[in-house]
């Protein structure tokens, strides 16, 4: 049985439909990310699961129990907020113990659990501090401990890292994932940072305009985007205007270059389509197994350390490609002619 099920969830604010027919089934212990641009309804979905907003339609079940109309304080869910939301008048220990205190647990149990939680987040000595005496990263850890202390059935995190600076963001997300794995707790993580979503999730839900456009493992989302939106939102994508030359052979035409795809295309001859490729599947020069070759001119090069990003003009269109840095290969000169090759199975044809 799934740990958390969301079925046909709907939410409207007045005439504004913010979440549309949202379906999601999460397994016990799974880590799911909701990824999407600002205003796409991620927070709204999360707040409905938490019980802060009541859905306009649909159902939410946790462990088989219908909680759609249950108050937030009866759902046994843990939540971590973007701005920490620690209670400023309580110490760290009191914050962490809050959930147990309001549940009227015995004092000794609270104390033991608080100690355990503070050790879990690696701040065992800070129990007597007040929130204002902590750094942002520490505050967010405490918020996590507070959410976990009640041993919730589900953990919700709404952009928990976006108020932190870049370095802590990476280390804390690893830590959150690590703790989540150890406790085996079902988790929904909201973010608009695709790298974050791809790097720590079991599955990613890409949302757009209140709709779940695609749900899948990070690898799948990145390499087999189902819609144009997903392809463009997740990762960098080169899009080339093309035209179907021969549907049966899977042949397209990009300017003067013919491209043969690994499968036939369904669209009729002459139909304009978009041919897409990630920068890292393109190679500078010919390479074994790359059956499609374009010729173009180097427009710009960006040396990013481990990666060299090259912008080229191909058939009158701009593309970007990434190659790994190698000490023996200096960046090509701007303005020179060069060849780009790609394997046809790495190309995507995007429906509009």
């Amino acid at each position, binding site marked *: 049985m799934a740990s958390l099920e969301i079925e046909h969830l709907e939410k409207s604010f007045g005439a504004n439909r913010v979440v549309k027919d949202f379906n999601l089934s999460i397994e016990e212990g799974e880590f799911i990310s909701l990824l999407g641009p600002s205003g796409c309804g991620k927070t709204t979905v999360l707040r409905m699961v938490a019980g802060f907003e009541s859905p306009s339609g649909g159902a939410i079940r946790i462990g088989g129990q219908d909680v759609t109309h249950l108050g937030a*304080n009866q759902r046994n869910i843990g939540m971590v907020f973007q701005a920490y939301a620690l209670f400023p008048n309580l110490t760290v220990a009191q914050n962490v113990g809050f959930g147990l205190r309001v549940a009227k647990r015995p004092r000794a149990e609270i104390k033991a659990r608080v100690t355990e939680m503070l050790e879990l987040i690696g701040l065992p000595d800070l129990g007597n501090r007040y929130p204002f005496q902590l750094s942002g990263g520490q505050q967010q850890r405490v918020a996590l401990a507070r959410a976990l202390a009640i041993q919730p059935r589900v953990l919700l995190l709404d952009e928990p890292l976006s108020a932190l600076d870049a370095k802590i963001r990476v280390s804390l997300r690893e830590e959150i994932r690590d703790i989540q794995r150890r406790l085996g707790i079902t988790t929904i993580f909201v973010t608009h940072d695709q790298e974050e979503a791809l790097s720590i999730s079991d599955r990613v839900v890409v949302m757009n305009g209140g709709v779940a456009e695609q749900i899948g493992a990070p690898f799948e989302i990145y390499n087999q985007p189902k819609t144009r939106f997903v392809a463009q939102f997740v990762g960098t994508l080169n899009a080339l205007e093309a035209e179907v030359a021969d549907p049966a052979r899977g042949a397209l035409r990009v300017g003067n270059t013919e491209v043969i795809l690994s499968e036939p295309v369904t669209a009729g001859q002459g139909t304009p389509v978009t041919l897409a490729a990630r920068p890292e599947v393109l190679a500078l020069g010919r390479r074994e197994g790359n059956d499609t070759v374009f010729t173009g001119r180097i427009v710009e090069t960006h040396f990013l350390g481990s990666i060299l990003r090259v912008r080229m003009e191909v058939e009158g269109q701009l593309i970007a490609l990434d190659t790994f840095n190698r000490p023996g290969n200096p960046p090509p000169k701007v303005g020179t002619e060069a060849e780009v090759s790609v394997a046809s199975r790495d190309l995507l044809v995007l429906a509009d």
Partner: protein
Amino acid sequence: MQSRKLPLTWVGMVPFTLFALLFLIAPTMYIVVGAFRTSDGGFTLSNLVNLFQPTILASYWISIKISLATALVGCLIGFALAAAVTLGGLPNWLRGPVMTFSGVASNFAGVPLAFAFLATLGRLGLVTVLLKSWFGFNIYTHGFNLLSFFGLTITYLFFQIPLMVLIITPALDGLKREWKEAASILGATGFQYWRIVALPILWPSLLGTLALLFANSFGAVATAYALTGSSMSIVPIMLYAQIRGDVLQDPHLGYALAFGMIVITGLANLAYVWLRVRSERWMR
């Protein structure tokens, strides 16, 4: 140190300091010192001892009672109103008018306020008359009297409640929605959230307002005087009469009377400062 480096910075403070000294500090100090002096200038405690006579003690007591009652009730009702408007899910447009009206009503004190309540709850007042003619209920034969402790309290509330609304609304706005949500998802009831989180956070503002409301009504003369003449013997009215030379005849007893007022409002504010420091360990 600062003044040695920039010897002229303090010059900018001269007008204000002079003004505060001459028209706020010195007059007050004069009274305080006078309370400890005999008429020929020697030190004495007898003025203060003289305060401990039944009539004066009684007037202090009733003043304190009225001030406490109006401060507490004003805090409570004002808090309820402010909470209703800020957190109670009422339409947003209500806020502006409520705040503006509070600004008006909190400044509508003194003589005209007394007139307003006389015209409403006096023997011929609108409410008195309506209650009598609609329900046959005469509040005056049932123990109500505007010129009493209860009447004065009701009247003072007209400026105490709005003052509370004005001061506490920003504090209520400072309560983050996430705190309420975090508490409720951790299993807290609304009551538990208020008890453990919201009220302790608001505590300093509440105490401060309470002290302010207390001082506000403790020193108020005009309303009571216009309402009751000198028949209601609260401290400020007694002092007023004394200054006008109507009673007591002993200026040093007047100083002592005034000194007592400063002590009481001062104590109220000291208590506030002390409680505030204690309750604000969690603040920067």
